[in-house]
């Protein structure tokens, strides 16, 4: 009996991993570059949104500055992986010990994540003491600081100029391994005692304090972990896009991630995934449709910008009718679904 429950517990994750691997394998083998790009973009966005959820959803620290960590991850990893001959041309003023380094993707990504985490720790020590809107404004300030540093630190970042020549290391596989890992980590934290500490601190700070929950400690831990994963996503993004400049990591990007998070539902990991999936696929479909098309004799001219307007209307509708987002802080209960499928099968078997 004990053995079978343990096995039963392993079934949902195993089913999910198998399903994901099958989908990715099919995309990798059959689909063209276009579809593969969309799958990669979804994967990177899943990491960005799920990790932001850790901070904004679980602890209630509504950060507007996470794109700053994405920028740090992108630049740090790209400096590390940039081929040596391109370093001599594009970053001639790098210190000598970096000049000869061209790292593989994985260590560079890990280091980039760690750097983002260290910065988050330094910033978080003071910022996590703030509350509500003050924390949002302060993190927005952090984003502006990152922007100014990137533009002025020519030696490492080429300033405002395009950082080009980053090797295109991001593939469906490495992106989605990170994405699956992120979802798993965030989901496990959410379900752990530690995750309950975070929520307690979010919902009622004084009550949480009186029960011995260290509000600042739990917020800081969530903020740092979230920054690590966001930094990783930044590295993946950089090795997918391959050329970028500081303005790639500013308000537009920040708000697009926050929109996906809020639409999916703050505090729900499955909500994050659903939000990313819906918004990425829908905006992609609308982008193709806004170019105009023919239905029979009816010819619709291109209306550029229509996709953004429609998406905005959709967001407003979601916020009006489902203020807590599509998932409203709940999770999809995969075990429950599997159990129900199992139960109905058993029911049929008995009948």
């Amino acid at each position, binding site marked *: 009996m004990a053995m079978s429950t343990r096995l039963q517990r392993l079934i949902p994750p195993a089913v999910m991993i198998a399903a994901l691997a099958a989908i990715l394998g099919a995309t990798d083998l059959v689909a063209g570059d*276009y579809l593969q790009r969309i799958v990669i973009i979804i994967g990177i966005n899943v990491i960005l949104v799920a990790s932001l959820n850790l901070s904004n959803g679980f602890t209630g620290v509504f950060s507007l500055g996470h794109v700053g960590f994405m920028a740090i991850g992108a630049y740090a990893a790209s400096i590390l992986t940039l081929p040596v001959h391109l370093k001599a041309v594009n970053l001639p003023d790098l210190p000598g010990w970096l000049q000869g380094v061209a790292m593989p993707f994985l260590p560079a990504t890990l280091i980039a994540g760690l750097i983002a985490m260290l910065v988050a720790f330094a910033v978080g020590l003071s910022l996590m003491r703030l509350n509500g809107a003050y924390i949002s404004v302060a993190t927005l300030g952090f984003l502006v600081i990152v922007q100014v540093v990137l533009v002025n630190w020519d030696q490492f970042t080429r300033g405002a100029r395009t950082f080009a020549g980053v090797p295109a290391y991001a593939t469906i596989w490495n992106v989605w391994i990170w994405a699956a890992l992120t979802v798993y980590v965030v989901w496990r934290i959410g379900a752990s005692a530690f995750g309950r500490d975070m929520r307690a601190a979010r919902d009622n700070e004084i009550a949480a304090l009186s029960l011995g929950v260290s509000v600042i400690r739990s917020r800081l831990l969530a903020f740092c972990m979230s920054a690590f994963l966001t930094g990783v996503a930044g590295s993946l993004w950089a090795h997918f896009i391959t050329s970028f400049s500081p303005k790639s990591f500013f308000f537009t990007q920040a708000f697009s991630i926050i929109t996906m998070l809020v639409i999916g539902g703050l505090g729900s990991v499955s909500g994050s995934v659903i939000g990313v999936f819906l918004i990425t696929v829908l905006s992609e479909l609308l982008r193709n449709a806004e170019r105009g098309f023919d239905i029979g004799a009816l010819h619709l001219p*291109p209306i550029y910008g229509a996709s953004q307007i429609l998406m905005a209307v959709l967001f407003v509708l979601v916020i009006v009718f489902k203020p807590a987002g599509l998932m409203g802080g709940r999770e999809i209960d995969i075990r429950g679904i599997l159990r129900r499928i199992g139960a109905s099968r058993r029911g049929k078997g008995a009948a």
Partner: protein
Amino acid sequence: MKTRLAIVLVAAAALILVGCGGKGGGNTIKIGMLFNMTGAQASLDAPSANGANLAAKEINAAGGVLGKQIKLVSFDGKSDAATIGTAATQLAQTEKVVAMFGFSDSDMVMAAAPTAAKAGIVFVTSGATSPKLPDQVPDYLYLACFGDNVQAAAGAEYAINSLKAKTVYLLIDKGMEYTLLLGKYFKERFVEQGGTVVLEDNYQTGDKDFSAQITKLKGQKAKPDMLYIAAGPDDVGTIVKQFRDAGVKSPIMGGDGYDTPLLVQVAGKGAENVYFTTHSLMDPKLGTDAVKKFIAAYQAEFKVPPENAFAGLGYDTVKLLADSIKRAGSADPKAIRKALQATKDLPGVTGAITYQEGSRIPQKGVTVILVKDGTFTLAQEVVPQKVPQP
């Protein structure tokens, strides 16, 4: 929840079907057009797209190329690198275009051009003037406009020869690759000709207050003969106005970022005695014959005069590609690239285009414009004697 999700899915499926419809016939040559119709770049890119559409219409009305009609397959880049990369992939793989063109910003070009190169087709940028671009995407990335080193050199030579300037104050926007390079090239050519830079200062894109820079300039003992301010279109008006209001009367010079109605609208009288280098003078009375014809056609098609020189650049780029296809004798991407490289003295609204052996930046004349009584007037057409290395 479930019904709502179902509605969304059905709508999505409908959109997919719609998106797949409307494919062109066999008797057309498809060229990919990528501009940012929305977002930060739209003020430059939308006129370029209009110009390009006008050129395609004219070519098709005259019988097309090689007996086939030209079809511009277009996506909105939305001023977003990820979207642009995806759109470029669609053009290369789904639409199977034979060439691509577009964009007025090097970041945007770099998001699309590598995809084109990977598919073995050329990408011609209509308005991104960074001379460093072609080296980033070997063999397949071409400029239809002059490089910033050319316009900065033309500005420096005009300053020395015609304005008789010996000393200059340099102000550079540190927030853009375009302004950084422009300032650097100007300084190089100006100093090379015996001029001196008395003071060099900088600011950030979007800054609204320039009093610190002005105070520093006024604190100089030796007053510079002129000011060279490398700024983007959104900032030029504000900067010129504040310097003039503070009593700075010397000539101010800049690059094609000044080629916007905002210069006179924002700076008003302060815009007098401002010089800038650009692609052509878009004026129905003072422009060249090609410009006059273009303005009339543009006005007839879109009910507005061309917004800026980028309209002309979009127009010239399509004509350039059509000419290459014609000379190639086929719509084979390899043949098009060979013919494009061999382009010689092709007349256009923004000047004649010639690609030297091994260079993918055209040799083009530069138009120097002087603002007089609130209008842009032609100061001189300059072909620089010497151009700084990219």
